[in-house]
């Protein structure tokens, strides 16, 4: 219960982050329950139900990503002198991190179950009773075991991922350095060529598989890739192409961020440019990875929008919920990473203020970093999205 006690005294912003995790977990839980409801309502269409369940993996991954990022930045899970003095070392702190993650995600799952039952009409006495009875298979008895298993997925996967990320690292004897020494910087990320190769491979796969898909679709009005609300089938080639492209964008993030920083601090920089560039190089992995994921999501969103926005009913409420979950989770992860970067820069900020640096220096350096990343990543995302959507248009 130490996890609860630590949670009670934490900063509102930390609680807000945990609340975001709980909300995301609730959304994913609801989507999983809806997939189960679809299976209950349509016993004959097992493949369609399975497809719905598989589509839930995307918001699930985004939620786990966010949960791990929040657990990493949680001040309660960092080694602290106050806890270390009473013998709470890295191993117990990992356990606390996993427990905190499990608590917030389980809270979300519980909310999901309540909302699901309420919308089905099983819980009465509130507005919107039976609001989506037809969609959620009202009248069919709910298999309790299946529901609980599906609801346990997010807490189990998130806390396992958090524990795995925060597991105590083995320290070699003599490898321990004095605590005043600044940490050794991470080496330059090397994923850029792989990322570019994956993007190219993904786009190529899509181009090669599209003609068959269109031919199979027959009429020119039928879009070749179906969003999960439709059940006309999704061609595996196009999906694989999009997945490869998204993976490539996510891999490109750190390397591209590092090169941005390198360019920024080159050629006789002033203090602002020097600091902005160096911090960007140092934070290439921490910021670059979630930034790449956000770009991948944005590219997918832009491509899907340009393909389906013109249609009469582009997507249903559950698809909208899933898409919103993915967008919110990845953006929240990026902000959490930015916050983590700021926390680790506390020493730098203190040192600069001691030297009489103007308080605006770090702010303008942060603004410069954001501007550079935006000017590099926004056109890249747009280009990839347009290229991904291009072969699917007629």
């Amino acid at each position, binding site marked *: 219960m130490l996890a609860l006690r630590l949670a009670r005294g934490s900063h509102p912003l930390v609680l807000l982050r945990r609340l975001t995790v709980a909300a995301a977990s609730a959304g994913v839980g609801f989507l999983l329950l809806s997939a189960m409801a679809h299976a209950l309502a349509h016993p004959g269409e097992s493949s369609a139900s399975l497809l719905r369940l598989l589509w839930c993996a995307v918001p699930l991954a985004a939620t786990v990503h966010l949960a791990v990022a929040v657990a990493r930045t949680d001040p309660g899970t960092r080694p602290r002198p106050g806890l270390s003095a009473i013998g709470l070392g890295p191993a117990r702190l990992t356990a606390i991190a996993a427990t905190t993650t499990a608590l917030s995600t389980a809270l979300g799952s519980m909310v999901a179950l309540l909302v699901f039952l309420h919308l089905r009409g099983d819980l009465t006495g509130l507005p919107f009773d039976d609001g989506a009875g037809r969609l959620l298979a009202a009248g069919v008895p709910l298999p309790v075991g299946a529901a609980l298993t599906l609801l346990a997925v997010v807490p189990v996967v998130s806390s396992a991922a958090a524990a795995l990320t925060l597991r105590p690292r083995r320290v070699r004897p003599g490898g321990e350095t004095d605590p005043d020494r600044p940490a050794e910087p991470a080496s330059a990320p090397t994923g850029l060529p792989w990322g570019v190769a994956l993007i190219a491979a993904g786009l190529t796969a899509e181009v090669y598989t599209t003609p068959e898909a269109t031919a199979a679709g027959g009429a020119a009005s039928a879009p070749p890739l179906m969003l999960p609300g439709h059940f006309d089938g999704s061609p595996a080639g196009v999906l694989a192409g999009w997945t490869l492209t998204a993976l490539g964008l996510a891999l490109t993030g750190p390397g591209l961020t590092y090169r941005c920083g390198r360019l920024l601090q080159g050629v006789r920089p002033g203090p602002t440019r020097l*600091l902005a560039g160096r911090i960007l190089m140092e934070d290439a992995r921490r910021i670059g990875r979630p930034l790449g994921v956000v770009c991948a999501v944005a590219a997918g969103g832009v491509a899907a929008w340009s393909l389906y926005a013109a249609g009469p009913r582009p997507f249903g409420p559950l698809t909208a919920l899933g898409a919103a979950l993915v967008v919110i989770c990845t953006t929240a992860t990026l902000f959490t990473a930015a916050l983590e970067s700021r926390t680790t820069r506390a020493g730098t900020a203190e*040192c600069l203020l001691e030297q009489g640096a103007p308080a605006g220096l770090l702010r303008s350096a942060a603004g410069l970093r954001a501007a550079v990343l935006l000017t590099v990543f926004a056109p890249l995302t747009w280009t990839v999205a347009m290229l991904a959507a291009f072969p699917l248009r007629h």
Partner: protein
Amino acid sequence: MVAPPDNDVLWARSLHCSYSGAPALAGVSLGVREGEILAVCGARGSGKTTLLRTLSGQLVAEQGEVWFNSAPVHTMSAAARERLRRDRFGWISPEPTLVPELTAWENAALPLLLRGISHRAAKATAVEWLERLDIGAHARTRPYALSQAQRQRVATARALATTPSVLFADEPTATLHQTDRAHVLRTITAAARSHRITVILATHDAEVAGLADRSITLVDGRRVAAAPVITEAEGRAACSLSV
């Protein structure tokens, strides 16, 4: 408001400071002449750091006045005090606080860059001071690869590179070994004498205080004539013949 004496570069009158109720400074007054090396002696917790922070404008005293070159520091805005520290003061802290993202010479050149000096001139000055402190070979090394003593030398070079009017050195040799300590102190005092830098040196070491022109002693936030010297341990029998 009494105008300070003209020959004092830094002048303070009855400074009072407290940290959440616990008094850190209780009525300290002092004047520092130009080019003087003043040692502020005292045990840990006697208010040395608070006094230096107050004099350098990092902290504003609850009561009392601080004047620098006939300008009142205690009434300045935060931005003006920041500019004053950037343009006229240097600061060395007990632990070397370097920007971990920058190399040794960039760290030493940072105050010059912040003053708007060109990149080339700042680099030349920084490297020159690093060489004077025997660390020129590590000019392109990042702080994580330097030892504590080397980092403290970089911090010293950074403070001296701007040739400030007043250099505040808060226990600059507290974390160093004897040989490094002597070298760093010699460099600071030699630079102060040759460039007419006023130095305010906080220390608990009587040997270090011996290098200064003048020294004052603080005990529990008050200025006293000299530190009380404890010669014998309390409770120990002076004579053990009775055993």
